[in-house]
């Protein structure tokens, strides 16, 4: 039984070209890029090539690209670093209710230190209103952090609009672009951002490496202390093979352009149309059009998400849920909650996220298995039974 991997928003398989670059670095290029002799300089050149690739994609200077250990570290440096550097200027941060926990939890930590944080609401599609952002600004606002594309539902925010406003008001603006980097245009000047987080393993690169774009002149302090690497903002010897792999992965994404996006969109719509035609009582989560091409988040009413995932796994299909039960928290998805989805419905959410290895045959196999899985689970769901009784009464 072949595996159908539909969880590309969680992580992606490393591309062969990337694996090759990683292997080459691990085997033959062990030098510390901060050293002066030849093998150190070889590593340095490899790493700086990756930095140039990133600068090209972001439309920035190479000095503005800081390599980190991943999206979470990038988000933490952005939020905590800007807050600490601006303590004298103010104590207010604006973010949204649908951010990744890598932004939400640093904000919560800052609240314990006396910071004020505004968590902006979203509409039923998961969209932030840029006017709400502007209205929330106080004289003490030092940072706005809004994600580019949401990991759970895929909704894409109008970052450029907020960016223009933030720049006019001279407020530092960060975007978590972990789900969009390499997929959507992330030109930092078009977006109008001062900081941008990205991660390697979401674009077929290795895990444990990411980047933070930091616009020149942005007031920011490190959150870790050590050597001078990465402009002292992220001290510690760089993960050179990881950085090179990330660079290769980003280079390949950039070369592909928007053709892959169109292909993923076709697959996603084929799946959604098939689900709608074959499974009753389903609801789409996320924006109908302003949404990542590969993201499909669907609520299957009267069933629970984890039980769908476990059943799909039996058919060799890997998907994930917005459901509580997959995490230790046992709370339903904060993203769906912010979109106004009641908990009894959000427990039935299933996220299927496409990637470059998926094919039309995959979609057809999912459409063979999924209706059966949902039907079986509904057959012993007490609330489905109650629903059917209500229908006939």
């Amino acid at each position: 039984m072949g595996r159908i991997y539909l969880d590309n928003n969680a992580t992606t398989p490393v591309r062969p070209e990337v694996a090759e670059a990683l292997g080459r670095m691990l085997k033959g290029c062990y030098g510390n890029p901060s050293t002066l002799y030849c093998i150190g300089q070889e590593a340095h050149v490899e790493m700086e090539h990756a930095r140039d690739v990133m600068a090209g994609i972001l439309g920035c200077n190479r000095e503005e690209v800081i390599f980190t250990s991943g999206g979470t570290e990038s988000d933490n440096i952005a939020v905590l670093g800007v807050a600490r550097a601006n303590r004298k200027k103010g104590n207010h941060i604006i973010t949204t209710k649908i951010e990744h926990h890598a932004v939400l939890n640093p904000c919560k930590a800052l609240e314990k230190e006396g910071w004020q944080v505004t968590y902006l609401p979203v509409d039923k599609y998961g969209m932030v209103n840029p006017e709400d952002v502007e209205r929330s600004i106080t004289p003490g606002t030092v940072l706005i952090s809004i994600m580019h594309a949401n990991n759970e539902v895929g909704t894409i925010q109008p970052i450029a609009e907020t960016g223009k406003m933030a720049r006019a008001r001279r407020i530092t603006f960060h975007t978590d672009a972990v789900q969009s980097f390499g997929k959507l245009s992330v030109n930092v000047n078009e977006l109008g951002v001062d900081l941008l987080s990205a991660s390697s393993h979401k674009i077929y690169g290795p895990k444990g490496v990411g980047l933070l774009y930091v616009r020149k002149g942005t007031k920011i302090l490190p959150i870790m202390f050590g050597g001078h690497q990465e402009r002292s903002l992220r001290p510690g010897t760089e993960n050179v093979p990881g950085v090179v792999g990330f660079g290769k992965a980003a280079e390949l994404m950039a070369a592909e352009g928007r053709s892959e996006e169109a292909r993923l969109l076709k697959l996603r719509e084929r799946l959604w149309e098939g689900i709608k035609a074959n499974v009753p009582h389903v609801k789409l989560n996320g924006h109908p059009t302003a949404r990542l091409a590969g993201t499909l988040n669907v609520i299957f009413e009267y069933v629970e998400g984890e039980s769908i995932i476990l059943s799909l796994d039996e058919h060799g299909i890997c998907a994930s849920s917005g459901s509580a039960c997959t995490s230790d928290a046992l709370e339903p998805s904060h993203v769906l909650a912010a979109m106004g989805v009641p908990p009894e419905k959000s427990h039935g959410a299933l996220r299927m996220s496409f990637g470059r290895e998926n094919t039309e045959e995959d979609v057809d196999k999912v459409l063979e298995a999924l209706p059966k899985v949902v039907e079986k689970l509904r057959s012993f769901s007490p609330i489905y039974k109650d629903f059917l009784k209500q229908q006939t009464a």
Partner: protein
Amino acid sequence: MAYSEKVMDHFRNPRNVGEMKDPDGVGKVGNPVCGDIMELYIKVKDDTIVDAKFQTLGCGAAIATSSMVTEMVKGQKLEDALKISNSMVAEALGGLPSQKMHCSVLAEEALQSAISDYRNKKGIK
């Protein structure tokens, strides 16, 4: 987090699943807001549970514990069935991940509730 093979077996092939016609006792616990609802039905003859069935909305652990508890109570005297605890259900399944233990509590509660429903109907206190 990983489920034991036994949990997966009961999840894949739940025993005693479905609604029961004219049950002697029904236990309904959980709520949709938490994402877990369990309904346990029992048939009682001479103070002994002669049949048990269930319907459950919930995660893998919720479905597996429902299935297991119906297996465990069949043929049990009511007083013995009342002694079945959540940890006994979890143990019979080869253990549950710690964050899933609350599902086994649901199974225990459903059983207690079904037995007290039966006793209430019979006027037994």
